[in-house]
């Protein structure tokens, strides 16, 4: 059986109510699911002996501005065993701007989630150290949100005295 079919079959049998949506883009399998299941699904993909997605390459988000579920959190994970890359997606709404952390599954996702929090303001539940990673800690905005002006907000970042 092809790996893509195997993954979708395994996920659907193990998480029957996760509302999966499978799609393909440029030969990569994209899996969308309900954000409540992010931690168990990631744990499963990493620990299943036939899949072994050991590497979490990136965690980022997309701001859709006016869409109902405003943000999509995107995980790029990689299986060294199969030389196979998988994209996971979960929608997050602005009113409940939280998603569970996967830092217990992949240690590297600690900083990637901090970056995502810094840039988009999405809170990761149970994260061990959810602080800003790039911007100064007293900064009040999330710069990669669509409603943040590109040039920034005057006076929001401090300059030294002349």
């Amino acid at each position, binding site marked *: 059986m092809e790996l893509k079919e195997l993954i979708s079959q395994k996920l659907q049998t193990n998480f029957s109510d996760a509302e999966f949506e499978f799609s393909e883009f440029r030969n990569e399998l994209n899996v969308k699911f309900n954000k409540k299941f992010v931690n168990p699904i990631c744990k499963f993909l990493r620990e299943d002996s036939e899949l072994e997605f050991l590497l979490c390459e990136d965690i980022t988000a997309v701001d859709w501005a006016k869409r109902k579920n405003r943000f999509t959190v995107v995980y790029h994970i990689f299986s060294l065993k199969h030389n196979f890359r998988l994209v996971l997606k979960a929608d997050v709404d602005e009113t409940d701007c939280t998603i569970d952390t996967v830092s217990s599954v992949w240690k590297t996702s600690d900083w990637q989630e901090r970056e995502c929090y810094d840039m988009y303001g999405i809170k990761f539940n149970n994260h061990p150290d959810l602080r800003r990673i790039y911007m*100064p800690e007293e900064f009040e905005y999330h710069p990669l949100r669509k409603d943040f002006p590109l*040039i920034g907000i005057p006076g929001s970042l401090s300059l030294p005295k002349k």
Partner: protein
Amino acid sequence: MGLEAKLNGDGFFVTKMDALIAWARKNSVYPMPMGISCCAIEMMASADPKYDIARFGSEVMRFTPRQCDLMIVAGTVTYKMSHVVKKIYDQMPDPKWVIAMGACTSTGGMYRSYSVVQGIDQFLPVDVYVAGCPPRPDNLLNALIQIQNKIGRTRARDFQSLKLPELNVIQNN
């Protein structure tokens, strides 16, 4: 050579102290290489044998601000970095000069963005701006010559009003 011809066999010559100090100062400018990004590569190139900043007496790049009198800010200064740049500038002894090297440092350049300071003259007194992205080493040497001309015009009384800068010292008790 020029100096022997001036001495003219007498073994001495008369000048003003101001002129002598300015002459010595302008021909031994010690740069503080504040290399923050890609402009720093061109700044390093200006020190190599091809461009040879030593011809202008500035080969002594000191990596401590306390021994420098010219700060070459070479690279994109972000708001976070600006505090570090200012802190290093404050540690340099007076009199001191600043070159803003490259488009990013002078105006923010192509980074018209929330995180980049749109010109370091918002927090530093810049003497010479160097155009280019990055500027060629000859362009930086031209800036150095401009600074030398500026130093050559100084007199001791220009520095009489200088006071020690207020440093924000964090004391560890």
